[in-house]
C-alpha cells in the first residue's frame, strides 16, 4: 500500500498570494494514499527539508510529493533530502504550483487554488507508480577535440592541455591563428595582435598534450558524451611536413599567383604557400585547385628547388580516427557580404573597402607594409570615411543583430589611421556607440578627443563618385542637417556572420543552430558554453559575435567544462532514459528517425528463442539518451518506455483528474 507524503510550499508570497495553501493541503489530505500533508513557508530551506526527512521516517512514506516551484529549480535539493533520509531519490515528484499555477493565474485565486490541488493530485497519482531508479555510470575517454584554431580554439586547447588532458586541435587552414592573426592592433590597449597571439600559437605547437592537425576537417562524429569517435580528414598538403624545413624556396619560385585569402585578396600568394610569416606550423601546402602540376601535370618547379625533396605530388587525403570524450567547437566567423548595399556603390567603386581589408593594410605584415592606400590609384588617403552598422541592425538588407565589435574596431581604425597617416582625418558615421567593456568607453573617447575623429550620427544614404574622390552623403542627426563628406577612401564596418558551412558542421555534430547559422548554446544565460548535446561545448564567434576578451573567456569556460567532465573516471547521469521492450518492437525504426540525439540504433536479435533467423529491433544507447521521450510518443507498438515517465505513471496522472 502506497504511503505518500505531500509537502506544500508557500514560497513566501509567490505561491501564497494567489493560491490558498492551507486549503490545498487539506484537499491533499483527502486523497486516499496520502498519509501525511503539511505546508511550510519555504520548503527548500533547511527546516523545510528537515520536515521532509522527518516525515519520511515517522510516517514510513513510500513516495514524496513536493508542491512548490518548477522542478528545474529545486528538484535536486529535494532528491537530496530524500536520499539523506534513506529513500531512493527518484521516488520524489514535484508538483509545480508556482510557475504552472500561482504566477500564471494571478487574477483568479479560486481557480489557481483548484489547479494547484489538481496538480498535486496528479503528482500523487504519478508518484504511486514511481520506481526506484539509480544513476547511470558511463565510462569516459579523457581526450578533447577542439575544432578551429583561432584564438578561441587555441585558448581552449591550451587550458585543457594544461590540465594534462590530451587535446586534438583540428584547423582547416594551413596554419592556426585564425582571424586574430589578421589583425594589426587590438582594442582597447592597442596591443599588437601578433605579439600577443604568436606566443600562444607556439605553445600549442610545442605542448606535449596537444596534437595539432592543421589543414584538416572533421568529417564524422559518432558516439555520445565521454565516448565520441571522430573521423578527421587530413587534406593532402603535397608537402612532407616531417622533412620540410620551411625555408621558402618553393613558394619563392612558384609561378602561379592566386588572390591571397589571408590579406583579403588585396595581393597575391603562390599556389604553394604558407599563409603568413609566423604561421604555425610554418610549412607550406600546395593549393590543389591552382597548382598547374596537379591540374595539368606541367611545372614541378617546387619539387626541383626543394633541397629536402619534401614535395610529393602523389599525396592523398587521409582519414584519421580519434577517440575523444568531449568537443569544443570554435570555428569563428566570416564577414557579411555588403553587396546588397547598392546605394554605397559596393563593387562599383574600388575605393570602398571592408574593415578587414583596412585592417590588413594598416598591419605591418600586410600587403601594403602598414600604410593604407587607395585601391584605385595607390595614393595614401587623407580623408577616410568609416561607416558602421553595414549589414548589422538592418532587417531590410542585412541582419537584425548588432555585431558587437564594430564600434570598437572602428574607433581603433580611426586611431590607427592617425598613427599611420598623420595629416589624415577620420569621419565616422554611426548609429549608436556601443562601448560596453573594460576600458572601452575610454578608448572611444581617445578616438574622439585625442585623435579628433569626427563622429556623425546617422546612416549613410548614398555614395557617389566626384572626380577621383567619393562623396558620402548622410545625416548629422546632432544638427538635423544633411552632410556630405568628400573622401579619399570609404571603409565599411561589415557585420560578423557565421561561416556558410556552420549548419553542416552542426548537423554533423548533432547540435542545433539558429536562423543565421550560429551554433546554439543550451541556455542563453545559465549555460552559455554548453550545447544541448552533452559533451559538446562552444567557444568564440561560432556562437555569437564576440570580441577577443569575451572569446578567450568563453574558451576558458569551455575548457573548464571539459576538465569538469573528465574529473571522474566515469560520468554520472540521470536514469530518466528510454528502454525498448524487444518483445513488442516491430523494428519499424520510426524512433531512430525521430531521436534528436541519435541515441537509438538498431540491433539484430533471434526471431524466436533459439531461432537462427534474425529480426531488427531498436536499441537505446544509455550514454546518449537524454530522456526527451520523442521515441515513446512515436512508437506504434508502445514498445518503448521512459524511466521516470512510464506509460503507467502518465496514465495514473490522467486518470486522477
Amino acid at each position, binding site marked *: 500500500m502506497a504511503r505518500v507524503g505531500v509537502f506544500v510550499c508557500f514560497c513566501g508570497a509567490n505561491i501564497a498570494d494567489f493560491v490558498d495553501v492551507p486549503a490545498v493541503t487539506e484537499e491533499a489530505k483527502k486523497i486516499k494514499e496520502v498519509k501525511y500533508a503539511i505546508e511550510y513557508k519555504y520548503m527548500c530551506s533547511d527546516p523545510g527539508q528537515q520536515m521532509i526527512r522527518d516525515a519520511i521516517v515517522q510516517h514510513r512514506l513510500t513516495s514524496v510529493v513536493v508542491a512548490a516551484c518548477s522542478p528545474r529549480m529545486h528538484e535536486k535539493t529535494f532528491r537530496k533530502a530524500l536520499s539523506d533520509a534513506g529513500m531512493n531519490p527518484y521516488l520524489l515528484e514535484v508538483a509545480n504550483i508556482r510557475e504552472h499555477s500561482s504566477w500564471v493565474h494571478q487574477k483568479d485565486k479560486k481557480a489557481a487554488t483548484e489547479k494547484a490541488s489538481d496538480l498535486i493530485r496528479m503528482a500523487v497519482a504519478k508518484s504511486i507508480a514511481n520506481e526506484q531508479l539509480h544513476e547511470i555510470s558511463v565510462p569516459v575517454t579523457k581526450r578533447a577535440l577542439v575544432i578551429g584554431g583561432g584564438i578561441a580554439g587555441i585558448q581552449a586547447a591550451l587550458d585543457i592541455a594544461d590540465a594534462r588532458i590530451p587535446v586534438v586541435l583540428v584547423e582547416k587552414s594551413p596554419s592556426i591563428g585564425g582571424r586574430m592573426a589578421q589583425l594589426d592592433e587590438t582594442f582597447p590597449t592597442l596591443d599588437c595582435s601578433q605579439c600577443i597571439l604568436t606566443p600562444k600559437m607556439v605553445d600549442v605547437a610545442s605542448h606535449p598534450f596537444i596534437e595539432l592537425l592543421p589543414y584538416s576537417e572533421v568529417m564524422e562524429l559518432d558516439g555520445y558524451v565521454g565516448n565520441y569517435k571522430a573521423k578527421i580528414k587530413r587534406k593532402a598538403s603535397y608537402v612532407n611536413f616531417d622533412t620540410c624545413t620551411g625555408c621558402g624556396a618553393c613558394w619563392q619560385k612558384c609561378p602561379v599567383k592566386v588572390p591571397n585569402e589571408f590579406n583579403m585578396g588585396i595581393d597575391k600568394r603562390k599556389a604553394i604557400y604558407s599563409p603568413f610569416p609566423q604561421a604555425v606550423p610554418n610549412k607550406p601546402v600546395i593549393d590543389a585547385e591552382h597548382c598547374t602540376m596537379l591540374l595539368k601535370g606541367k611545372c614541378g618547379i617546387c619539387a626541383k628547388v626543394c633541397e629536402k625533396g619534401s614535395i610529393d605530388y602523389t599525396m592523398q587525403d587521409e582519414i584519421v580516427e580519434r577517440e575523444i570524450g568531449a568537443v569544443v567547437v570554435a570555428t569563428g566567423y566570416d564577414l557579411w557580404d555588403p553587396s546588397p548595399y547598392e546605394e554605397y556603390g559596393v563593387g562599383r567603386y574600388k575605393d570602398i573597402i571592408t574593415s578587414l581589408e583596412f585592417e590588413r593594410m594598416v598591419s605591418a605584415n600586410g600587403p601594403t607594409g602598414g600604410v593604407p592606400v587607395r585601391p584605385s590609384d595607390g595614393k595614401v588617403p587623407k*580623408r577616410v570615411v568609416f561607416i558602421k552598422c553595414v549589414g548589422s541592425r538592418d532587417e531590410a538588407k542585412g541582419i537584425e543583430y548588432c555585431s558587437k565589435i564594430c564600434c570598437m574596431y572602428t574607433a581603433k581604425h580611426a586611431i590607427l589611421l592617425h598613427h599611420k597617416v598623420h595629416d589624415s*582625418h577620420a569621419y565616422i558615421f554611426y548609429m549608436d556607440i556601443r562601448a560596453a567593456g573594460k576600458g572601452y568607453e575610454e578608448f572611444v573617447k581617445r578616438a*574622439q*578627443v585625442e585623435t*579628433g575623429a569626427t563622429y556623425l550620427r546617422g546612416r549613410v544614404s548614398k555614395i557617389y563618385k566626384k572626380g577621383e574622390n567619393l562623396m558620402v552623403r548622410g545625416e548629422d542627426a546632432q*544638427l538635423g542637417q*544633411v*552632410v556630405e563628406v*568628400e573622401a579619399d577612401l570609404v571603409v565599411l564596418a561589415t557585420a560578423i556572420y557565421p561561416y556558410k558551412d556552420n549548419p553542416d558542421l552542426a548537423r554533423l555534430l548533432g547540435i542545433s543552430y539558429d536562423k543565421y547559422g550560429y551554433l546554439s548554446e543550451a541556455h542563453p544565460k545559465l549555460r552559455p558554453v554548453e550545447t544541448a548535446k552533452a559533451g559538446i561545448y562552444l567557444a568564440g564567434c561560432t556562437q555569437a559575435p564576440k570580441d577577443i576578451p569575451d572569446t578567450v573567456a568563453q574558451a576558458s569556460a569551455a575548457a573548464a567544462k571539459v576538465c569538469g567532465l573528465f574529473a571522474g573516471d566515469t560520468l554520472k547521469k540521470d536514469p530518466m532514459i528510454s528502454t525498448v521492450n524487444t518483445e513488442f518492437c516491430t523494428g519499424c525504426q520510426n524512433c531512430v528517425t525521430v531521436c534528436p540525439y541519435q541515441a537509438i540504433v538498431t540491433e539484430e536479435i533471434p526471431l524466436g528463442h533459439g531461432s537462427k533467423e534474425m529480426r531488427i529491433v531498436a536499441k537505446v544507447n544509455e550514454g546518449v539518451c537524454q530522456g526527451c521521450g520523442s521515441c515513446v510518443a512515436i512508437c506504434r507498438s508502445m514498445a518503448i518506455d521512459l524511466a521516470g515517465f512510464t506509460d503507467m505513471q502518465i496514465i495514473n496522472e490522467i486518470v486522477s483528474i
Partner: protein
Amino acid sequence: MIALGQQIENKFLEAVNKKSGSNILECYQCGKCVSTCPVSSFMDFPPREIMQMVKLGLKEETYMANSMWFCLTCAACSSRCPREIDIPRVMEAIRHLAIEENVDPDNPKVKAIRKFHEIFLDMIKRYGRNYELRMMAEFNIRTRNLFKDMHLAPKALLKGKIPLGHEKVQRAKAIQRMFKMAEKLEKIK
C-alpha cells in the same frame, strides 16, 4: 547641406579651443546643457548644436547664430556638463572671435543684441554700473525702435524699477582704467 572633407585642418575648432581653454572634442552631445540652459529655447542653435558646429568647423554658421549673444553666462550648463566643458567661456570665445573677425555685424539676427552688449559695456565704462534709463533710451534710439517696450515704462517707474538719476560707483575712474588696460592687452595679443 553641410559639406565636409574639403579641408582636413579645423582652424575654427583650434581657435575656439585656444580662446576658451576647453576642448570641444570632449563634447559627446548628451544635451544636458540644452535642458539646463534657461534661454536655450530662445537660441536658434542650442549649446549642444553649437558644440557640434564647432567640431565640424562650421565657422560662418556659428557666427550667424544668436546663441552666444543670448548666453547669460549663468554657468548652469557647465556646472552640470559631464565632460566638464566651460560652455559659457566657449560662448564668450565665439563672441570674441565673431567680433574680431567682424563677420557680418549687420546681420539682423544678431545686430540688436550686439548693440545691447555694446551699450551695456559703455554704461559700465562710464558709471561703473548700469544706468537703466539711459541704457534703454540709447538702445531704442540706436536700434531705431523708439517706442519699444514703452508701455512697460509707467508700471516700472511706479515700482521704482527704473531709477531716474544715475549713481556712479565710488571709484568709477578705476573701472575706466581697467577698460583701458584690457584694450591695451587685447592690442598686444
